[in-house]
């Protein structure tokens, strides 16, 4: 996965609530292989009219916002379907950070496994991050220090699980990490299935 240490970039705000993963990427694009990239499908139906023209008023279509890499979103961002494509689409477009009051659980997990830093922040801090009139907001997100720094040098601390932080800093795949525990897994498995033999019920033909 992509490693993450410190990121500086322009923030775009999309303050709607309950932006579900169907909005982040519609289901009809999910069959595309990972290597095809999903940047053009990100927020597709919010971003484009049915005949494929950019929708006026959608923040991503504002030329001054097109280079944004940090997304500030509303409550319950990424709720709904478990599709990891939502994370891939954000990353492929260039986003590295999403900040919201809270997230859909599965989306939250998916993000951190791919190196997209998702940050839960209280509504008040989010308000102050969003409202700095005039210039597009440039933010620095410092993972080692666990803080977001705005252009006036104000710091907004955030929480992150220590293990997830370390995995992000190293960019290490979880599968490799887990393999180090394989002996323990096997031991557990034998004991568990002996105690609950129905778990192993052989497949009927």
């Amino acid at each position: 996965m992509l490693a993450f240490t410190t990121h500086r970039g322009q923030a775009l705000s999309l303050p709607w609530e309950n932006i579900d993963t169907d909005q982040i990427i519609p289901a009809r694009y999910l069959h595309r292989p990972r290597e095809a990239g999903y940047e053009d499908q990100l927020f597709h139906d919010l971003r484009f009219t049915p005949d494929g023209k950019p929708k006026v008023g959608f923040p991503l279509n504002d030329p001054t916002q097109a280079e944004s890499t940090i997304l500030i979103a509303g409550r319950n961002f990424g709720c709904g379907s478990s599709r990891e494509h939502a994370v891939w689409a954000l990353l492929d477009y260039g986003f590295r950070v999403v900040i919201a009051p809270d997230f859909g659980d599965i989306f939250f997990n998916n993000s951190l496994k791919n190196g997209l830093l998702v940050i839960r922040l209280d509504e008040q801090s989010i308000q102050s991050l969003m409202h700095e009139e005039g210039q597009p907001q440039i933010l620095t997100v410092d993972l080692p220090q666990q803080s977001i720094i705005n252009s006036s040098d104000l710091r907004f601390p955030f929480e992150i699980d220590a293990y997830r932080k370390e995995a992000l800093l190293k960019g290490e795949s979880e599968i490799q990490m887990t393999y180090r525990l394989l002996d323990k897994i096997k031991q557990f498995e034998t004991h568990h299935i002996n105690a609950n033999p129905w778990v192993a019920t052989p497949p009927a033909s």
Partner: protein
Amino acid sequence: MGRTLFDKIWESHVISERDNGTALLFIDRHLVHDATAQAFDQLKSEGQKVRRPDLTFGMADHYIATHDDPDRDPVHDAMVTTLAENAREQGITSFGANDERQGIVHVAGPELGLTLPGTLLVCGDSHTSTHGALGALAFGIGASEVAHVLATQTLWQQRPKTMRIRIDGELGVHVTAKDLILTIIRTIGANGGAGYVIEYAGEAIDNLSMESRLTLCNMSIEAGARGGMIAPDETTFAYLKGKPFAPQGELFERAVEAWRGLKSDDDAHHDKEVAIDARSIAPTVTWGNSPETALPITGHIPDLGDIETSKMEQYQATIEYMGLEPGAKLTSLKVDRVFIGSCTNSRLEDLREAAKIAKLGRAKVPTIVVPGSQQVRQQAEKEGLHEIFHQAGFEWREPGCSMCVAMNGDSVPSGARCASTSNRNFAGRQGPGSRTHLMSPAMAAAAAITGHLTDVRELEGTKC
């Protein structure tokens, strides 16, 4: 102190624990479907094979065809074939097109006995919460996690909190598990369950059939919850007895003995408790683009005055997207399509309810009925339900996800309003520009024969 149902299952699956509450859990059942191709690619790119193919089962559902469609996109068939190929390559039992055991993974899984009380079951699909109805701990995971489970048969998870929702009292006539869960979501909000596993309990839950329990747990994710679960009881054991992948004979009896202990102890602590009175619930429909926009069918579209200023922009967008008149009566909304199906409401009980209403008239708009599995289809046909649907002008299809997610080509045209028994009314969910109203099978059938949203209790012939 006592332990909750959740605690008991969680704790019996912890292989290793970190000091932050994250645990490595053993996975008893891993279900994969035809929209998980990328996870298999990820597994291969890590140079790994499926570690426990015997505990992994495949099901073709998202992309499968539900009727002969000359315009069908070959890409959709390719996804079904890719699942079969991945399964063959990895030695996984998989149920594909033309298999009698095929169905929507959350309908066919329980029905085959793949879901068992006390087990930990995951699937790369958010509605995996469905399986918790049998007293399993079941939740949806993303593609990276699917790859992790394929490779290791384990999963790292942060321990969730527990919420108990008690539903006391009896549900009214034509008030179903769907109305119940929509009301719960309206009450706690579309993210009210975030970070929690919900345990449903109380008199109304005890009285629910297994199928209704599946409907209820199915939509736990729409309240943002990690999972939903119900303690197994005699209803559960009777349901499981004789299912092909459930233990048989003496082993079944032993299992039931163990499963009887799977309930929250009297002195167990839940992090949050919610109580709802079943008698207060009416047939319910949604009006907006989040399941939390659920209202009793007797209600009205919220008016401008009901909306907080900060939510005005989104409200306006929803009204426009859904083509609504603020303040209008819900029953005044004309529908263009009806969809009866999805992992929420495509089981036999649902089809029986829909058929009872279909008998009372004829479809005024195109209506499709998509059974949740081959078994459901066969059983429904044995009972003659398909004939009732035919006579009412409802189209009877082959099992699959179909118009719930419109990934297989079955979609609602742009701007069309659909009365749907599925679980998500997100913008574009049933096809670009589609307008979805969620409701129970009886309510959807009622909308089909009247052409507008209808209080099924008011229909001639339904009064008792």
